[in-house]
């Protein structure tokens, strides 16, 4: 395998990972735009999505569905809905009361929310503390181009990811709900005066964010074959990093940032002599450097405060 082919091979792996990061990052950027807060519990919505899909899988087995496309559809739709319901509920109960509070308070509340969601899954899911095996539902097999292996799975995951991004893009830019979200993000007072239902817009933001995170959780399960109750914490940090790299508040930026983060991790593991465990150290280092030199991200709007 030549050096170039290895880079391509690693990039494909990085793209898989990056797609999941991107989907999580979309949520961060949406919440930040609409509510001006970082939801550190968002990584746990990602995890919840994976577990809800497993619950749906059990339901499907009770209903007599085999391991087929209908099962997959049931898992996706059921998990997205259930995760969104949890997200909207928690947002109404816990996040909205601290919306105008100092940043440190909202930060701790959302972190506490993440703990509550994580622990609930551990306690309520049967044997929830152990890693859970995720059913193999995507067609197996692979083909090669030159020396580069491509699995069918990879293509399907990529396709689902791109489709999700397109749908989100459509909702945000072409629907009434999307324009309400954009209006509140720009200026919530003015939006309220123009008759935008503020509370409903917040609900919708959490619906979109959580449903997209749930998709990422299911893709993670399908790709790695297992999920664990505590995988949301690190995913939250990565998703937040990705949305910052791309520019907070910018949906397209979040996707770029997520894919960049995924590529950075896999390529660093392959190319740098630092060992694969330290790939994340490299990625976080890049994030910190980014914050020093381009705090507004790649696509973020420029703000400044001068004396």
């Amino acid at each position, binding site marked *: 395998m030549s050096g170039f082919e290895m880079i391509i091979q690693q990039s494909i792996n990085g793209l898989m990972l990056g797609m999941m990061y991107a989907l999580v990052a979309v949520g961060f950027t949406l919440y*930040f735009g609409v509510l001006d807060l*970082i939801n550190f519990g968002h990584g746990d919505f990602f995890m919840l999505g994976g577990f809800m899909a497993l619950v749906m899988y059990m339901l499907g087995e009770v209903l007599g569905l085999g391991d087929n496309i209908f099962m997959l559809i049931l898992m996706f739709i059921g998990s997205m809905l259930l995760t969104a319901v949890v997200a909207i509920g928690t947002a109404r109960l*816990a996040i909205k*009361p*601290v919306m105008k*509070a*100092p*940043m*440190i*308070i909202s*930060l*701790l*509340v959302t*972190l*506490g*929310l*993440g*703990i*509550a969601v994580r*622990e*609930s899954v551990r*306690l309520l899911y049967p044997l929830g503390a152990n890693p859970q095996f995720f059913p193999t539902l995507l067609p197996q097999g692979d083909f090669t181009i030159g020396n580069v292996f491509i699995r069918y799975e990879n293509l399907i995951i990529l396709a689902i990811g791109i489709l999700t991004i397109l749908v989100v893009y459509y909702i945000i830019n072409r629907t009434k709900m999307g324009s309400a979200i954009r209006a509140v993000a720009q200026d919530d007072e003015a939006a309220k005066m123009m008759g935008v239902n503020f509370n409903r817009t917040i609900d919708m933001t959490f619906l979109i964010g959580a449903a997209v995170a749930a998709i990422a959780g299911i893709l993670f399960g399908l790709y790695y074959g297992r999920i664990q109750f505590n995988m949301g*914490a*690190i995913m939250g*940090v990565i998703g*937040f*990093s990705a949305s*910052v790299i791309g520019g*907070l508040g910018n949906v397209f930026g979040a996707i770029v940032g997520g894919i960049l983060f995924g590529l950075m991790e896999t390529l660093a593991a392959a190319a740098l002599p630092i*060992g694969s*465990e*330290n790939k*994340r*150290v490299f990625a*976080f*280092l890049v*994030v*910190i450097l980014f*914050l*020093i030199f381009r*705090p507004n991200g790649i696509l973020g709007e420029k703000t400044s*405060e001068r*004396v």
Partner: protein
Amino acid sequence: MTEIGKHKLSGPLGVLAVLLLEAVLFFAVMAIFLIEGGWVLIAEIVVGVAILILLNRIPGIKTGLKAAFTAHKTIAIIGALVLLLLPPFLLVKSAYWLFVLINAVMFIIACLGLNLQLGSTGMMNLAGAAFMAFGAYTAGLLSLNAGWPSWATLLAGMLVTGLFSIILFIPVLKTKGHYLALVTIAFQFMVVILVENVEFTGGPQGLKNIPYLTFFGYSFNEAINLGFITLHKYANYYYFVLLLAIVVALVCYRIYRSWVGVTVATIRDDEVAARTNGVRINYWKLVIFVLGNCFIGLSGAFFAHLIGFISPPNFVFDRSLVMVSIVILGGMDNVFGIILGSILLITLPEKLRFIQEYRFLIYGLLLIIMLIFKPKGLIPFVPRDYKDLLTKAKSKLTAPAAKNAGGEQNG
């Protein structure tokens, strides 16, 4: 009403009031350790918190007691010191709870450091556990590999942590708000991953058999035999960590009362306004960031010697979260709040072991509820009283003038 309270409590009645209040406070805290039944404990804490909130609502009692404390300062200090000597005697039968108490006092040191950054200066630091790791691993490695004496390892743990915090200082200075939070979280994760994967830290196995503290031939590993009672060896650690905590608390309190405290408070409240008024923001941020991390590192170094075995899970992000929660729930920029917060947040999870499984869930929910309903913490921040600072400053201004006048006369 306030005036009457003041008048009465500054007489001999005040001595009684001061000592009584101290004793009540002390035994209320000790009761947390001594009470066995979980529900009784919860009842005690609910009552205690209710009393605290009530005290904050009725200004007369508070000012009266404050006056009594200032009038009988020496007695109050002696009384408090005597009470603080008692815990090893009270907990003579349960070494484990003495150990938990030591842990709580250790966290007071770390959280006072964090409070300097977060509460006084408004610098977010979610990498507290990472800085604790620097202190702990420095102390551990130096005592294991180089055979340094305890006083040197503790000092080195503190200073090395301060040095390492300079690495993070440029990103900390350049970022604000959410971005600063992200920088420190990223740093926290980086440190834990590195410690797990680097060889000289022992990787996931950590460092074992770190020697216990020994000061000039006095070993902390032996029980204290007083003739009528034999105290567990942890009593040594308790008195030592208590001494450290008192020193750190005094330093923090002096900073709070000085112009430095006022200066950094302006940075916290409005950075732009502070800069326009000539506050050297970068300088003070550096001083506070390094000093705060030194305290965190000191408590980490103590931790390494206390338990003798450190590994990466001791320093994960959850620990940083606990430290920040202590500062917020106790009360920002408030030494007494930090003390109360540390004792509650370190001890309660241990006491709540009877609800084992649900511990963290309840912790998360309580955190949310407290922050929504009491965002200012158990002992809220009180607006600063500038009076004595101003009189001091004025006397300083007039003193050189008097000197000059004297000089002229002589000439």
